[in-house]
């Protein structure tokens, strides 16, 4: 293998990053500190955002980094780009690094587009002569030349993103670090950016790319690593890692089947044979994202003639707070009617653009007529929603909360 002989451009050895997490705030007031002198010290907890990371990246490689929220992806990028120091280990880097951890780094709302090009480019590491040289290209790429002398606070979010990305796209580092900044802007501009990205890839530049967009990772990256709880759990060809990851994301359980009747959840009248999350065609899901509608499909057998099948789906979050319950008592065909023995299938249709990109646990309760013979089975399915594009729109940050529905907005001038 001749390729192995190339010296790595980034060499990471035994890297670890520890954070102290406690009940305390991130920053304090002096007043609190003085009053706390007399209080007992609160115990702090250690949290390793990264542990024992060993990684070699060769020149020209495009490395995708995937993993769930909080798996250490962003911390790894921050350590490599020298924003935060590691706790253990070392990183050796040969060459100039540029980090794009957010869109529009250093932009100032009061300044014009022209001024912000100079400002942001300088902050991202371009020299003044370099900016002057590339200024026209940046303006052309951004397609906003007529608004160049307008303060960016008057820009639409689309224009803002275009300008910001154009600056980023004209950086000329040896190593480019990109954290989830592509899922923005309109589709055409996204394509243009992706095109520019793959050009960068061909120009022998090393790229580290974090994204929730699995398609982008597959198409852009040659190699990928999968981080989970601060450790690399898989390293290999991007396609293979992405496929493994999708099948495994957050230890998702998208389907369960009970062939052994003793273990299956049951009451006196019915027995649950299987439960799955399926797409609109009835195929078991491989990947769940917040934009796409899906169904919960319950397959069961009525053991006793003239039984009733009542269901309740309960969605819990990570902290085991119940987010919502949903009963099948509006179902028209069979609810409230006696069922003859045999196999049945009930489907609960869940719309897209409803849940946020969080982890959920599903509990299933089932019961006979009048909520009698009530049995509840916890953690029957587990799943994490991947981030989507539709509800995200032009806002790039985290969405708080468990739901992310797309409500209608209306504005009228009075």
């Amino acid at each position: 293998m001749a390729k192995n002989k190339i010296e790595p451009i980034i060499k990471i050895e035994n890297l670890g990053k520890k954070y102290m997490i406690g009940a305390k705030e991130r920053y304090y007031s002096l007043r609190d500190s003085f009053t706390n002198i007399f209080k007992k010290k609160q115990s702090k907890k250690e949290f390793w955002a990264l542990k024992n990371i060993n990684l070699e990246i060769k020149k020209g490689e495009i490395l995708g980094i995937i993993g769930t929220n909080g798996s250490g992806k962003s911390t790894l990028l921050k350590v490599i780009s020298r924003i935060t120091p590691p706790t253990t280990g070392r990183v050796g880097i040969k060459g100039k690094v540029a980090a794009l951890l957010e869109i529009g780094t250093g932009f100032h709302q009061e300044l014009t587009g022209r001024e912000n090009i100079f400002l942001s480019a300088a902050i991202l590491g371009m020299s003044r002569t370099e900016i002057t040289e590339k200024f026209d290209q940046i303006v052309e790429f951004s397609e906003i030349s007529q608004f160049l002398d307008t303060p960016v606070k008057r820009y639409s979010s689309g224009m803002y993103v275009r300008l910001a990305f154009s600056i980023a796209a004209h950086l000329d580092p040896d190593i480019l670090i990109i954290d989830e900044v592509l899922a923005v802007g309109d589709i055409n501009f996204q394509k243009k950016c992706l095109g520019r990205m793959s050009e960068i890839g061909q120009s022998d530049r090393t790229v580290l790319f974090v994204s929730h967009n699995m398609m982008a990772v597959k198409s852009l990256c040659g190699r990928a690593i999968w981080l989970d709880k601060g450790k690399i759990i898989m390293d290999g060809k991007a396609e293979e890692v992405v496929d493994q990851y999708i099948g495994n994301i957050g230890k998702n359980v998208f389907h369960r089947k009970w062939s052994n009747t003793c273990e299956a959840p049951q009451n006196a009248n019915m027995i649950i044979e299987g439960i799955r999350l399926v797409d609109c065609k009835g195929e078991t899901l491989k990947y769940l994202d917040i934009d796409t509608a899906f169904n919960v499909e319950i397959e069961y057998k009525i053991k006793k003639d003239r039984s009733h099948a009542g269901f309740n789906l309960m969605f819990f979050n990570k902290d085991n707070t119940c987010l919502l319950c949903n009963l099948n008592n509006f179902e028209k065909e069979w609810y409230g009617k006696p069922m003859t023995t045999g196999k049945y299938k009930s489907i609960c249709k869940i719309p897209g653009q409803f849940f946020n990109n969080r982890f959920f646990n599903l509990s299933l309760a089932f019961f006979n007529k009048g909520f009698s013979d009530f049995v509840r089975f916890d953690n029957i399915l587990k799943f994490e929603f991947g981030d989507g594009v539709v509800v995200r729109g032009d806002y790039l940050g985290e969405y708080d909360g468990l739901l992310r529905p797309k409500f209608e907005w209306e504005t009228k001038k009075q």
Partner: protein
Amino acid sequence: MKQQNYTTTFIEIKPPKAFVGIDLKEIWQYRDLLYILVWRNVKVRYKQTVVGVAWAIFQPLITMVIFTVFFGRLIKVPTDNIPYAVFVYTGLLYWNYFSTALTSTSDSLVSDESIIKKVYFPRIIVPIATTVTPLVDFLVAFLILFILMVFYRFMPNFWGILLLPVLMLITFMTSSGLGIFLASLNVKYRDVRYILGFFIQLLMYITPVIYSASIIPDRFRWIFYLNPMAGVITLARDSLLHHLSLDWTLLAASFGISFILILIGLFYFRRTERFFADVL
């Protein structure tokens, strides 16, 4: 292809040691960034105020007029026959720079947290750029001083003018030293800026801005001059207005103290710097 300014051939990232010195070479490599941040601060400052550049002229001028009316005319603060307007304006020139620079520098790391959390560069550039910024105001206000002297037909001492840059340097070191220290503290303790406002107000009364240092009894002078700004303003007046020969001891003392302040500031900054991105 032209070589880029910031090209670093090899970088090693390791857990930080207890103390690391200032890497002057690296700061020099990032001089373009320093320049652009100063440029940004100046632009933003003049864009955000309604009257823009005129503000730099009006602010010290109005303060001077108020002080002249109350302290010069009504209270009749002794100034050794120097027009009170010229007298107080000379003090205000340095004091305004000092208080503006100190306040904004203390806040600089917090207000630029968005770039500190997203990009690597020597963090010291942010507070330094912020201390440099009000120099523009200082220069504008400085021109007004000469106009004022012409108006009062006051002849300044030529040698005093030569001393001004030295005094400016001391003021710069004092405000950046204190400012860098407080900026680092402010990252962790966000109430520093409120305390600072009060502190600066008090400091103005123990600095000879509105009065002359000559009213301080001799035996307390050495305490009084522990404040380098007291030295700066006294020296400025003595050399520029009073035509006195230069007090070398006072100059050396003020310089020394401001130098100690900047060392303390840098020391504390370097000790806390590496965790800024985690705390901000």
